[in-house]
């Protein structure tokens, strides 16, 4: 097969994957996620467990060690058929606490400790880097197989270049589809879909090769069984220790590998999918393993002695002249490698960015939660850079190790490293007594032993650990030899490391937990995790928050994005029975907000940011007692009470708000009566005085003209005021006649900006607009809408107190509405006045020279109500900000 065709097919395949991811992203965004979230897609996405190590390596493994390879798939099978024990709980916790990664799970459970997050992140990166290198190597090798097989005999292209191109392509793909949105709970539909497609490709490819081998090369099932018994594999030496140990390690790894946690917990859309996966994923694993032994047996039989059994999946079809089958097998291997790398990169990048980069960035900026700046942008950027860094690490490792044989063993070594998280994880979700200190000691101990006994020696003697240390121990201390701790020699090195690391990890974790005392936050989180099924929502932990809702909103906007944050705050305010964007900062609300933020930046960072705004408030012992007491109450009773008291509190809050408003309004009304009297009498005074002057005196003509002019102007001023009053009264009674027409929103805004420039024409005033977003037709009473726009822009010209006044106009389509935001850079409107500005005659400053009688915004509000839209004050934008919402089509 010509090499160019192979390259062309691979590129075509990559293009198809891009297409699949792109279409899935589009559909999900259009709200058509439906089948994207099916249990089938979930199960297929789990197949990233089967990497190139499985696809190519399992056959080699079987050729060398008989059936032992099955343990790698039997362990996960037991975990999945036993889903009711661990998986169900993990997924529920992951969803309830909006966990973003395995490091976040551990950090969140142990009191939102970022230290633990950092430890787990570092372990994960170290364990995964060689594994990523292994994937790059397998793809490079499979290219080489085709190259060496060509009759034309062209030279093998530089292998390093192949790996480099592959790493670069994967980085691009992962960044494109993996960092579109920040919230880990907004799932990566594109990537999951692409992985599901790859899962199908690799299964079909391996099954095809298997069927070809059993019925094409050999003579069917019975022939294969006979061949198995006749082959050298039949003499495999079953080591009971390895059989049990490897089953355990693979069972642990499927729970703790960062990439598995990503697809299993973080990307999970529905808990019921776990139920389906409980049988479907073992089935997938079984099908992937079904033909491994036959392929190995036939390969050993027909391939020339000394050929690499790791590549039988490719070389058997090639030697049998089945080029297309070999190509399919190649794509299967390619899929296995790429899907693993993509998900691993996302998972690791999330961890690195949430636990290392973002906290560092926040720590370097004092008072950061309040400081201006787009945290969301920083987090996204750090995530992108982390993806690049993870892949660069993998490539560098591949490059330095030169594709050595040491890589072949790295799969299991990586598993043992990942498994070190298991005690802290299981302890955390089943035992309330597990503490932060215990988890830290256990993790570090297990990790250190793994590093010393397994990871470093894997580079070969004379690699990172000198042959002297391997044979004599460090400084000649014999009982510290990396592969014979405590002087026990003759153990299988992998089992040796597994035994000691897990044993010491677990025991130090237990002893550390028993001996230490958890902090309040830790105990709260402990209850929330262990008793996840007994509560509808986790305990809050924020009491008497000192945070201002407006501060919280402006912080959240920088993390969640403006729209998302505003939607969340509005919904929460509505739940409290309040209008607008600012809910009361009740403990419940703050806890909910924290969980929302945790979905983006991880629990520890979210907690730290909120703590900053709440004046560093921490959980008190009373809060703990409250939580413990709650748990003992009869659930239904307390739920009823809660519902009732919630409702009472809501009603009370609504009443209080209404009452405040009434009192405020009554004061306003008195003030208005004086105001209206003043506004009417002032022009009348001039009119009366000058008309008397005109009546009696023999004035020079020019004075007569001047005074008549004053009378004329003052009469017009009176008329305008009366017009406004009448207009308002008509609008309020909804008796207004609307002239529905169509206009371009852009033109309307331009007209408004021009018309408003009469107001304080002396002042330099910049209006920032985005013409592209403004071009859209609006079907409404365009004169009325224009009146609203002019009023808002004039107000900004009048009241914006910035040195260089800038008004930003933003237009966004949202569902069936269009939202037009007018945001200036002045000092905004104080919170206590925000509720009043839309009331009649509520002029905030007393400068009568500001113009009208304070009816402008009241009229605007009535106009928008008549047009089926609304106008609101948008707090937390830095300056005064108004949002005009208008239906795109007026409902009749």
């Amino acid at each position, binding site marked *: 097969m010509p090499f160019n065709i192979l390259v062309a097919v691979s590129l075509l395949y990559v293009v198809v994957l891009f297409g699949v991811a792109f279409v899935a992203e589009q559909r999900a965004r259009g709200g058509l996620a439906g089948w994207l979230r099916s249990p089938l897609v979930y199960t297929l996405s789990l197949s990233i467990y089967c990497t190139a190590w499985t696809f190519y390596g399992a056959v080699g493994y079987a050729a060398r060690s008989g059936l032992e390879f099955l343990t790698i798939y039997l362990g996960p099978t037991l975990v999945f058929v036993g889903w009711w024990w661990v998986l169900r709980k993990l997924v529920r916790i992951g969803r309830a606490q909006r966990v973003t990664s395995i490091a976040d799970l551990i950090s969140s459970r142990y009191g939102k400790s970022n230290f633990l997050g950092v430890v787990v992140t570092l372990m994960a990166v170290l364990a995964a880097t060689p594994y990523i290198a292994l994937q790059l190597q397998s793809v490079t090798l499979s290219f080489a197989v085709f190259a060496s097989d060509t009759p034309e005999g062209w030279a093998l292209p530089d292998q390093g270049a192949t790996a480099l191109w592959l790493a670069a392509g994967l980085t691009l793909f992962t960044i494109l589809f993996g960092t579109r949105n920040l919230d880990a709970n907004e799932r990566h539909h594109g990537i999951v879909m692409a992985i599901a497609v790859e899962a199908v490709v690799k299964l079909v490819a391996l099954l095809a090769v298997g069927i070809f081998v059993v019925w094409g090369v050999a003579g069917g099932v019975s022939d294969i069984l006979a061949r198995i018994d006749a082959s050298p594999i039949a003499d495999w030496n079953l080591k009971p220790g390895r059989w049990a140990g490897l089953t355990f390690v693979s069972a642990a790894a499927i729970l703790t590998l960062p990439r598995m946690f990503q697809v299993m917990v973080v990307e999970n859309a529905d808990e019921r999918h776990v139920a389906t996966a409980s049988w479907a994923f073992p089935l997938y694993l079984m099908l992937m393993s079904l033909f491994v032994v036959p392929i190995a047996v036939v390969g050993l039989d027909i391939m020339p002695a000394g050929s690499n059994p790791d590549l039988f999946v490719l070389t058997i079809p090639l030697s049998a002249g089945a080029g297309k089958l070999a190509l399919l097998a190649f794509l299967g291997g390619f899929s296995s490698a790429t899907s693993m790398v993509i998900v691993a990169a996302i998972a690791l990048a999330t961890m690195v960015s949430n636990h290392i980069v973002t906290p560092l960035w926040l720590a370097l900026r004092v008072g950061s939660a309040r400081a201006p700046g787009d945290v969301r942008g920083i987090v996204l950027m750090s995530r992108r850079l982390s993806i690049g860094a993870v892949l660069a690490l993998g490539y560098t490792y591949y490059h330095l190790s030169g594709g050595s044989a040491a890589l072949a063993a790295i799969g299991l070594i990586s598993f043992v490293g990942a498994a070190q998280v298991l005690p802290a994880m299981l302890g955390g979700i089943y035992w309330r007594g597990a503490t932060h200190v215990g988890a830290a000691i256990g993790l570090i101990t297990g990790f250190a032993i793994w590093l010393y006994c397994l990871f470093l020696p894997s580079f070969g003697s004379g690699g990172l650990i000198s042959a002297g240390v391997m044979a004599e121990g460090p400084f000649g201390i014999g009982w510290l030899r990396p592969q014979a701790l405590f002087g026990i020699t003759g153990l299988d090195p992998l089992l040796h490391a597994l035994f000691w690391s897990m044993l010491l990890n677990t025991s130090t974790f237990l002893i550390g937990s028993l001996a230490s005392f958890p902090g309040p936050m830790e105990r709260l989180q402990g209850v929330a995790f262990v008793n996840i099924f007994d509560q509808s929502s986790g305990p809050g932990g924020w009491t008497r928050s000192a945070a201002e809702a407006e501060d919280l909103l402006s912080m959240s906007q920088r993390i969640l994005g403006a729209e998302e944050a505003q939607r969340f705050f509005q919904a929460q305010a509505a739940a409290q029975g309040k209008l607008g964007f600012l809910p009361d900062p009740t403990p419940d609300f703050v806890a909910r907000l924290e969980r929302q933020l945790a979905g983006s930046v991880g629990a520890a960072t979210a907690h730290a940011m909120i703590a900053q705004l709440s004046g560093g408030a921490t959980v008190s012992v009373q809060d703990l007692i409250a939580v413990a007491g709650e748990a003992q109450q009869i659930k239904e009773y307390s739920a009823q009470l809660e519902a009732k008291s919630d409702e009472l509190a809501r009603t009370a809050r609504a009443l209080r708000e209404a009452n405040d408003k009434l009192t405020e309004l009554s004061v306003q009304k008195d003030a208005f009566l004086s105001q209206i*009297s003043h506004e009417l009498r002032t022009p009348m005074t001039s009119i009366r005085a000058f008309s008397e*002057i005109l009546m009696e005196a023999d004035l020079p003509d020019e004075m007569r003209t001047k005074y008549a002019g004053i009378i004329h102007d*003052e009469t017009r001023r009176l008329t305008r005021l009366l017009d406004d009053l009448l207009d308002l009264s008509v609008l309020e009674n909804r008796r207004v006649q609307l002239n529905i027409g169509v206009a371009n929103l852009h033109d309307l805004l331009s007209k408004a900006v021009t018309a408003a420039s009469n107001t304080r024409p002396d002042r330099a005033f910049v209006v920032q607009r985005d013409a592209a977003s403004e071009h859209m037709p609006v079907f409404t009473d365009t004169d009325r809408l224009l009146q609203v726009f002019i009023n808002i822009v004039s107000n900004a010209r009048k009241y914006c107190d910035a040195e260089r006044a800038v008004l930003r106009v933003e237009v966004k389509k949202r569902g069936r509405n269009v939202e037009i935001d007018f945001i200036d850079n002045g000092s905004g409107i104080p919170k206590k006045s925000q509720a009043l500005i839309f009331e009649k005659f509520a002029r905030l400053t007393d400068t009568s020279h500001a113009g009208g009688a304070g009816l402008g915004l009241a009229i605007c509000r009535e106009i928008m109500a008549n047009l089926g839209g609304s106008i609101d004050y948008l707090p937390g934008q830095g300056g005064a900000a108004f949002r005009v919402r208008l239906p795109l089509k007026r409902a009749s």
Partner: protein
Amino acid sequence: MRGKHIVLIEDEPNIAEAISFILSREGVRVTHSASGAGALALLQTAHPDVLVLDLMLPDRSGLEILAELRAVPALAALPVLMLTARGQHRDREAAERAGASAFLAKPFANADLLAAVRGLARGGA
């Protein structure tokens, strides 16, 4: 009334122009200020015979200015005519409490204004 000096504090330019015209026709010298800021200093240097003071000024209330000048010994006896556009009973009482010598609601007849100023100028001087 000829030769008398009157200070007028009024923010509405048209009303100020009308009052100035009516009074200066009678030979009165009128000094006008559109705001309450610096009113006290103006009064201390100008030594007017009568002060005509608007109740609602943009920066501060006329009542405030009145209370302040009554506290200055040199100005304690200055006759003050208070003008208001609100014309409520409350305002009249408040003005009298603060020490206004006379009170006139807007809009007023030119003759009433002249009569009030004349009365105050005579009584005060």
